[in-house]
């Protein structure tokens, strides 16, 4: 059962990543691109966690945790740059 669930989840996340990529390339504004990038970060977290479940190794969880904890910083930095130019003021 878990096999099918994992396969389904992998499929969904892979599709989400492809769509995010599509959005990123053909986005009308830079804001849309940044949202797409942030979505890809989230997808990456999901993929790593699923991979950890599939292989039964706990170490990968931490990589997901670090992305979750720090990945948003780069999105924030991009957003600040677009909105204000200077990211540390």
């Amino acid at each position, binding site marked *: 059962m878990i096999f099918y669930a994992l396969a389904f989840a*992998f499929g969904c996340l892979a599709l989400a990543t492809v769509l995010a*990529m599509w959005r990123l390339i053909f986005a009308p504004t*830079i804001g849309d691109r940044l949202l797409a990038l942030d979505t*890809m970060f989230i997808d990456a977290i999901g993929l790593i966690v699923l991979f950890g479940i599939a292989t039964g190794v706990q170490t990968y969880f931490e990589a997901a945790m670090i992305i979750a*904890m720090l990945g948003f910083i780069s999105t*924030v*930095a991009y957003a600040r740059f677009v909105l204000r*130019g200077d*990211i*540390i003021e």
Partner: protein
Amino acid sequence: MSLFLIVALPFIGALVPGLMIQAGRRACALATLSVTALAFIGLMTHVPAVLRGEVVQARVEWLPALGLDANFFLDGLGLLFAGLILGIGLLIIIYARYYLSREDPMGQFYAYLLLFQGAMVGIVLSDNILLLLVFWELTSLSSFLLIGYWKHLPEGRQGARMALAVTGGGGLAMIAGMLILGEIAGSYDLTVILQNREAIQSSELYMPALILILLGAFTKSAQFPFHFWLPHAMAAPTPVSAYLHSATMVKAGLFLMARMWPVLAGTDAWFYIVATTGLVTMVIAAVIALFKDDLKALLAFSTVSHLGLITMLLGLGTGMGAVAAVFHIINHATFKAALFMTAGIIDHETHTRDIKRLGGLRKLMPATFVIATITALSMAGIPLLNGFLSKEMMLYEASHTPWAGSYWVVPVLATVGALFSAAYSFRYIWHVFFGPVRKDYPSKPHDPGFGMLASPAFLSVLVVLIGIMPSLAEPLVRLTAAAVIGGELPEFHLQLWHGVNAALVMSIIAVVGGVILLALHRPLDRAWIAAPRPEAKIIFDAVVEGAASGSRWLTDRLHDGALTRYAAIFTVTVLALAVHAYLTGGISRPTRAMMPPGVVPTIGWAMLLIAAGCLVAFHRRRLVALVLMAIVGLVVSVGFVYLSAPDLALTQISVEVVTIILLLLALNFLPKTTPSESSVARRVRDGGIAVVAGLGAGALIYALLVRDFAFPTISEYHLANSYKGGGGTNVVNVILVDFRGFDTFGEIIVLGIAALVIYALTEALLSSPVRARLLAWTDESPDAGDAHPMMMVVVTRVMLPVVLMVGVYILLRGHNDPGGGFIAGLIVAIAVVMQYMASGFAWAEARQRYPYHGAIGAGVLIAGLTGIGAWFAGEPFLTSAYGYIHLPPIEEFEWATAMGFDLGVFLTVVGAVLLSLQSFSRIARRSGDRVSAHPMDIDPSREEC
């Protein structure tokens, strides 16, 4: 006195004149004199032992792994040269005391002189040829300082530079020659090399070694065609010329040929190279000397000529040749040093060295006249003076030496050389001292005081004594010649009268011819001046200028400041090497089967390709390019997870965040689009290079992946020894802190330096004219929304302890599970940068209690001290130790010294990352942006809101 002390005394003593000059010039000179006198007495204490035929030795290991040991030995040859260097050094120090004027910095002069003296003594006493090379280069450097002593004179500086270039260049060639010699003999010890004559002469590397060593000797001893630097070095003060260019430095090349004589001499190659060079030098320099009007230039070329004479004698390769060479070295040192000093006296008293402006000094300077006449006649080879004896021996040797089957070439040329030598010696006496007293000397001449006359007078007494009673010098000559030959001495006696033989006839021809030449000097001089001849300085300058502009051209081609150029050159070079390797090497058949690809990895791969492709398409829009780079980083990070490299994945994720922040900070001041600067053709060319290199790298990786390794990898060793040796189960971390700990130590130092450089550059930028431009700079970017939104402030404030906790956790467990100081440092640095971004620069800066420089320094110190700790356990630097501790409430845990090292890495990374980010954002601060000290723009708890 130990040989070490004799060599070290002048070096240590070089400090003395600098200090003693405070006590006055007399005290300074006396102190210098006593240093040299002490070394001289120390040398003399070894005379009885050397006379008994013993070889005095002093040995200590310095760098045994390189074959470089501080070994010294003293035999007859060393004794003669060390005696000359220290003995004449004493006379020069006395002479210089009276020669130098009040304006000349005397302390400096004596300090340089002692440095030079130490280097010379080092050369002649070294037993190890590598050590000898060190001293050899030291003489080049210290003589550069001495020749350029009068810094205000352009000729002095140019002469010093020329001397350094020529002798230093020769020294480089000699290093190669000595290394070859050492390889053949299997030891760098002279005493061992000197025993291996057969092995060296039969080796096929004998010729290259010989030529390289002779290059060093010929440049140092000013042999044709390298003779041109010596006359230009005459811009030095006369004591320097008398010391360096008569008795010591230029004799270093002769010393080397004499030292290597037992192993190098005796072959045809040696004879034809050395004897021919010596003969040619002797004749050419003697001819030039006759037509020089500058007293010191005349003496300089005569020195070159006499050096050629000695070189020729050594080149003969016969025992008697070596004896004559040794004898002439002694005689030349005595009369030439005295002659230089008289030239200095004349210059000092009349303020000119131009022979055409002199004459008639006989009556005005009688004492100088007597000394100059005796020594110049000795140089001309007049009987009853020492120069006659050794010149006679030279002529006798020349009279029966065949050259390429011809029996007349050597004797005739030797006679011509002797003839011109007699002529310029007579000219030195006749044109300077005889003739009518003139009215137009630049200064009214008279004899100097006793101090200046003492040294040359003493030397001229020696000239006469040896000339009349050659048996006085015989023990010294025997001793030295025995050391040169290294075997049985030929039967000989130094005596005045040998009967009527070929040498006497040649000598008479030379003296008579010399007188005739002097009589004809006026018409000959006119012809000489009218004749075209190559000017060495112009040629030398042209060569130097050519070399300089050539290298400048090459450097400008390779380093024109454009990154594209560097990248293209680098890539093409690597490609060429790869093609060469592919064409010349073999490749085995694939040994591994292909694996089926999964769906998700394929998507990741496709994304990587698409992102990279889009990056090429969009790279002119810099922000979009940065976003695409973030995708590449993300896919690579996930790829590391998929390929079971969690350490790399964690590092990659944190590095990506820091990189993006850094680039965005920089991009704020840069154009947002990349202008199109290069032509289409160039872009096509660069694109071609990039595509070929990329495909090549891909093909290489593919080829590697479908084959097993041809050699066993080091991974097995690391896996097997990680826990046993390093006490950790995370092999990556154990490699970083233990197996390759020294590399990591170097890397954190480099990282720290890079951050400090960024800081320094920012500081320099902000105090330069750029600051005004920054102040006038108006930010064109939009100004939407809050500078410090409340939600952001609150979120980052809450996250700070959590992230710090994760950082500490990753640091502590790093040795056994993925993590370690580097990743932890990045995570903690991001946690702090988060506060800068959310709450503002001013707010964060106000709460930063320890400067980031301190963190970098502390990190490097802690890592270094941890490494040093291993020494106390008797282990090499950075050896790690570990053990287990059991405290009752907690589980048993491990301690490892690697923890301390990792802590150092952690601190350095935190400091370096934060210092560079802070430096970047400071540029914006100084540019006049508003800074709020409050964490939030809208804060309900603040009164004014």
